[in-house]
C-alpha cells in the first residue's frame, strides 16, 4: 500500500516508516499538520494514498482537525489514528471524526500491518484475507504467493506491483500509477524499471497473467472466478 505517515516525533516516525517499509508499503512521512494537509488534502483526489497513519498531537495543530477537514471535502482515504491519547473519550472522538481505526502508542508494527490489511480488505469489499486470481493465490499477511500449489518467490517490488494490480482485477494501471504505488517520494527511478519488474513477474507467474494495454498500462487478466 502507499501510505502517508503523519508523525511529529523524529525517532518514532523513523521507526514506523522503516517498519511499514519492511511490510512492503510505500511510505511518505510528514511531521506536521501543515505538510500533511499539502500532501493529502490539498492534493485532493489526485493523492494516491491507500491509507493515512495519523498522529493526533502535532506541533501545528490537531490531527483530529486535519481529519475532519479531509472528510468535509469528501476525501474518503482510510485513516488509522496512532496516538498516545488513550482515553475512551479520545478514541470515540477520533473514530467519530472519520477515522477507520484507532491505535494507542506504543504500537506493535505487526498489529499495525494487520490493521492496515484489514482496512484494505474493507475498502476493496473483500471478505477473505487471501487474494485469488486464476491459479494464483496471494496472501498479503504472509506476503506469500502460490501458483497452482507451488510457492513462488517474488521480490518486494514484484510483490508490490502484483498486489497493486490484484486489488482491482481487470482495471488497468498506468506506468505513473505503478511508480506512485511503488516508490512514493523516493525520487528518480530508471524509466524502464517497471517494465523489468513486469517481465520478471511474467516469467515467474506465467506470460498470460499480466496483460499489456498498449499505451495505457497493465492489468491482471480477468478470470471467471476472479
Amino acid at each position: 500500500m502507499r501510505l502517508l505517515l503523519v508523525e511529529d516525533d523524529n525517532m518514532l516516525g523513523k521507526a514506523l516508516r522503516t517498519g511499514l517499509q519492511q511490510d512492503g508499503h510505500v511510505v511518505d512521512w510528514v511531521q506536521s499538520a501543515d505538510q500533511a494537509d499539502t500532501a493529502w488534502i490539498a492534493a485532493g483526489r489526485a493523492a494516491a494514498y491507500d491509507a493515512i497513519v495519523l498522529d493526533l498531537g502535532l506541533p501545528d495543530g490537531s490531527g483530529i482537525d486535519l481529519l475532519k477537514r479531509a472528510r468535509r471535502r469528501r476525501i474518503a482515504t482510510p485513516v488509522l489514528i496512532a496516538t498516545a491519547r488513550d482515553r475512551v473519550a479520545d478514541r470515540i472522538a477520533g473514530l467519530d471524526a472519520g477515522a477507520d481505526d484507532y491505535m494507542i502508542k506504543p504500537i506493535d508494527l505487526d498489529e499495525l500491518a494487520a490493521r492496515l490489511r484489514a482496512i484494505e480488505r474493507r475498502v476493496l469489499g473483500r471478505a477473505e484475507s487471501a487474494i485469488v486470481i486464476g491459479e494464483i493465490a496471494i496472501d498479503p499477511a504472509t506476503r506469500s504467493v502460490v501458483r497452482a500449489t507451488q510457492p513462488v518467490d517474488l521480490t518486494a517490488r514484484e510483490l508490490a506491483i502484483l498486489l497493486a494490480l490484484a486489488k482491482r482485477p481487470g482495471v488497468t494501471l498506468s506506468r505513473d500509477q505503478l511508480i506512485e504505488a511503488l516508490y512514493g517520494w523516493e525520487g528518480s527511478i530508471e524509466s524502464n524499471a517497471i517494465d523489468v519488474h513486469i517481465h520478471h513477474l511474467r516469467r515467474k507467474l506465467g506470460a498470460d497473467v499480466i496483460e499489456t494495454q498498449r499505451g495505457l498500462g497493465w492489468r491482471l487478466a480477468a478470470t471467471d472466478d476472479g
Partner: protein
Amino acid sequence: MKRKAWSLRNRLIVLLGGLAFIAWGASSLWLYRTAEKQAGELFDAALVEAANAVFAAVAHEGLGKDDDFEFEPEEHAHVERLVYQLLDRRGSIVYFSPGAPREALAAAEARGFSERVADGTAYRVYTLRASNKRAAIHVGQRLSDRAALVRTMVLQLLLPGVVVVLLLAVGVWFIVRRVTLPVISFSQAIDARAPADSGPVVVDSLPRELQPVGRAVNGLLERVEIALVRERTLTADAAHELRTPLAALRAQAQVALRSREDTERSEALQALIGGVDRATRLVETVLTLARLDARSIDRTTLPVVSLRSMAGEVVAGLSAAARARGLQLEMDVPELAVRADSDSLPVALRNLCDNAIRHATSRVQLEARVAARGIVITVRDDGPGMTAEQQSRAFDRFYRGTSDSAGAGLGLALVKRVTDLHGGSVRFSVGLSGRGLGVEIVLPDAAVNP
C-alpha cells in the same frame, strides 16, 4: 501537650448568662435595701399614726377618770400587730393592749422613736408624751414582724426577676447559637466539600467578621488548586511525552528484530540507543522539576556564592559541546557575590546555555551585571530565534517550538521554576548582533549589599 479547644459558643453563653445573673443579683440586693428602708418608714408612720389616734382618744375620754374603757382591736390580715402602753405621770403602766409586754416599752424619758427589748422581745417603739407630762403613750411593733413583712414583700418583688433571668438565659443561649450558626455552617460547608472540589467558598453570604476568614480560605484553596492543576497538567503532559519516546523505543526494537538487512538493523539499534538516552534525559529533567516544585527557598537564608565561579563551572561543562558545533562560548560575568541557591541556579544557567548552543550559528554569550532591579543574567545566541507565538508558550512545560526531538520542552520551564524560587523573573530579549534569541533572568533579591 494538646489543650482542649475552647468553644466560642459556650464561652459566650456562660459569660452572657453569668452577666445576667450578676445583674439580677445586684438589682435584687438594691431592691431589698430599698424595700427595707421604704417599709421601715411606712411602719414608723403607722406607729406615729396609731400613737396619735390613741392619744386623741385618751385625751377626749380623760385619762384616769374612767378606768374601764376598753377597745377591741379589729382582727385584720394586714393590720400590723401593734402594741400600746398608756403610762401615767408617774410612769406606771395604766393600760396596755392585749399582747403588749408588762415592761415599759421605752426608757422613762424617751421621746419619739426608740428600740428596746421588753419581756425578751425586740420592739420598735414610738413614744408620744402629753405636753403637760401627765401621760405617755408607747406604741410598739416587734422588729421580727417588721423584718418578716419586708422579706415577704421583697420575695414577691423578686420572683418575677427569677423568671426574667431564666428567660434571659434561654434567650442568650438561643441568640448565641443563632449568631454563631454561620461559623458552624461555614465549617460544615468546607467539611462537606468533595475532595476534588477546590472552587471558592461563597464569601458574600458570610457575616462581615467572617469574610476575612472566608477570603483566607479561598486564597488557600486557590493556591492548592494552582498546585493541583500544575500537577495534573504535568502528569498528563508527562504521560504523553514519556509514552512517545517509549513507543519509539519499542518500534525501533521491533524494526531491528524484523530486519533482514544488517545495515537496517544496526541503524535501528543505533536509534534505539539514542532513544534510551533521550528517555533518560527526559526522566532526569522531570525529576529535577518535581524536586524543584516541591521545594521552597527561604531567600533570606540563601548562601552567598560567587556568580562568576558558578557561571564559570557551567561554561566549562558546556565548552566541549560548543566546540563540537564550532561555536564560540563567551562569558562576561564580573566578580559578584550573590544570594542564590547553589543547587538550582547552575541547572537553570546550564539549560539556557545548552539551548543557546543547540540553536546558535556562531556565538553564545553568558553575561551578568548589576542593575537597579537586581542581578541581571542574560544568555544570548545568534541562532534563528523564536517567533512571538513560540515565545509566548516557551515557558510552558512540554512545549516544543519545533518537532526537534532533542528536548522534551522542559528546559525553559525549569529555568522559570528556578527563577520563581529565587523570587525573580525571566523573559526574552534580543539576541546577538540583532538576531537570535536572548533570555534574561532578573534576580531582585540576589544582590549582596557590602
